[in-house]
């Protein structure tokens, strides 16, 4: 595939309470056999992305142990590989990752030294199946600057803890709100983005110059009227395990035959 992958596996999440005190959320066990990051990693591997960077900082040990070899996901042949990037102290910088954009800025060399034209950015706590090639095709067809994978959530979902988007009839995103107090739509961002590599580098550098650090707030929301940002609707199963309740429900979902068949058959 003509894209590299970046998995944002950074954070701890206070809504996961004690469960994630000692481990990154992305290393939380799902469905008995997996850890949540396996879903995003497998999606990338199955979409033939060959080079993937995982950006992490909170309790990275749990994740590092799990990602001890790229071979489990078939990354990392002579070309490509699986990289785990934690913050490092350099002559110019001794900060932690101050946000998702900052995490990418601190690893800008990875982006600059790649040659693939596109980047797939995804969070590491999603449980879903997607072919990133389809998203990329859509991205190219729409002549988008950034494509955001979105999903209409079922009634009764607590929308307020997601980023919500409103698209026009061409699927261009007109409004983007992060964790709105009162949601105006039930379409949420899944935290999965496709963007041209050079554009990403440019925007991340600009962001850093202005001392801004967050990909959603400082890039998606700030640039939504200037850049062509499109939503790609996914309709299939998608959950993220951002709270104890979600974590419990997601695991319980795997007892349903339709969910098991969707993922495993």
């Amino acid at each position: 595939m003509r894209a590299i992958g970046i998995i944002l596996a950074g954070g701890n999440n206070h809504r996961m309470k004690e469960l994630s005190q000692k481990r990154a959320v992305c290393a939380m066990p799902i469905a008995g056999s997996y850890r949540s990051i396996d879903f995003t990693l497998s999606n990338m591997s199955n979409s033939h992305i060959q080079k993937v960077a995982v950006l992490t900082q909170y309790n990275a040990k749990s994740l590092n142990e799990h990602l001890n070899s790229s071979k489990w996901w078939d990354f990392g042949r002579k070309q490509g590989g699986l990289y785990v990037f934690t913050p490092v102290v350099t002559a110019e910088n001794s900060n932690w990752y101050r946000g998702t954009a900052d995490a990418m800025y601190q690893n800008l060399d990875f982006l600059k030294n790649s040659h693939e034209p596109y980047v797939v950015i995804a969070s590491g706590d999603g449980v879903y199946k997607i072919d990133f090639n389809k998203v990329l095709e859509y991205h190219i067809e729409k002549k988008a600057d950034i494509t955001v994978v979105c999903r209409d959530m079922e009634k009764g979902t607590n929308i307020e803890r997601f980023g919500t988007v409103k698209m026009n009839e061409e699927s261009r995103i007109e409004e983007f709100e992060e964790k709105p107090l009162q949601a105006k739509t039930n379409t949420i961002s899944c935290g999965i983005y496709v963007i041209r590599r050079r554009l990403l580098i440019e925007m991340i550098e600009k962001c850093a110059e202005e001392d801004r650090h967050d990909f959603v707030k400082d890039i998606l929301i700030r640039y939504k009227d200037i850049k062509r940002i499109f939503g790609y609707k996914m309709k299939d199963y998608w959950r993220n395990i951002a709270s104890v309740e979600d974590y419990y429900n997601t695991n319980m979902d795997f007892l349903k035959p339709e969910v098991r068949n969707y993922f495993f058959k």
Partner: protein
Amino acid sequence: MIKKEMIAMLLAGGQGSRLGVLTSKVAKPAVAFGGKYRIIDFPLSNCINSGVDTVGVLTQYQPLRLNSHIGIGIPWDLDRNIGGVTVLPPYEKSTNSEWYTGTANAIYQNLEYMESYNPEYVLILSGDHIYKMDYEVMLDFHKANNAEVTIAVMPVPMEEASRFGIMITDEDKKIVDFEEKPANPRSNLASMGIYIFSWKTLREALIKMAEQPALDFGKHVIPYCREKGAPMYAYEFTGYWKDVGTLSSYWEANMELIDIVPEFNLYEEYWKIYTKSEIQPPQYIAADSVVERSIIGEGTDIYGEVYNSVIGCGVTIGKGTVVRDSIIMNQTQIGDGCELNKAIIAENATIGNNVKLGVGEEADNDTAPHIYNQGIVTIGEKSVVPNGISIGKNSVVFGVTTAADYEDSHLASGKTLIKAGEE
């Protein structure tokens, strides 16, 4: 110069015909064992756990599954820049091309492989035994005795000794004599088919004996070494060791694994057994299902009842089906409402709905009673048994069968139904 102190040569070319249809498509070392393993995993894991990182695997009979299982040796950490695992099939030569005609002949044909590592010692293993053994301890024994040949032996009950190659030793464990399957055994130390040779001794013997047809370790090489007066010692092993060469011993060895703490413990951290695992989803135990005292492989879905059984990976046991005392290998699908008693079902088989296996009175098998006995029903790999069939004891089915192959939807005890050449 590349140098390895000890390399292993693993004989994995035999058919293992006493396993009946289980080995009609695969070499014996590649037969599934214990829910997730294949027999060859045991000697290979023993090698790496003993620090032997150079292993030549001699293949000949039906090697495809063995080759894909071994690959480049990743599961056993045997993917090495120098050494590691090498699959050694027979190959064509400018003159005198031949198959491996005997155990020692196979080793002889790979002299060059062994020479390339300049070993001090060569360990000869066979690929059909279930055991855990530290070959390094055996090597220490070999060195301490200044032996040229060391043969691993285990004490067997005197009344069974006449089935084995028996070593007669002095008080220092030096072998003074040996007998192949003696009528009146003089000792109960049975050879396990595991040898350490000092390289020079082995090399000389193989070259000297090269013209011997069907050159065999037990029949030719060991007697030659004794004639020559090479010091030979017996290394006594008292741990768990099982030759799974027959259907009933294969069945027993599997059944021994389902004890809470089995005599042969696969669960201990020390001395792990490694295998190549397919990527499988987690197992699923449905509502109303019962699982008692069984091993269940990954990715297996159980809707029925399973007692005292070893179930492989990716198996489905249908609703209302009752499985007892059986071995079901990877990817086999069992329909609803079946009844399985003491059955061995090989990989990728399909059993329809309401099928009964192992029912009725026992009767001797009509074609090969020395293979199919003890009441075990055997179903070969990729076989199909259609809906509503009942099959008796000591019977065997292999191939894609249809209702027309059965009389009144029944195959009596002791009958053989083999539809060869079809899949």
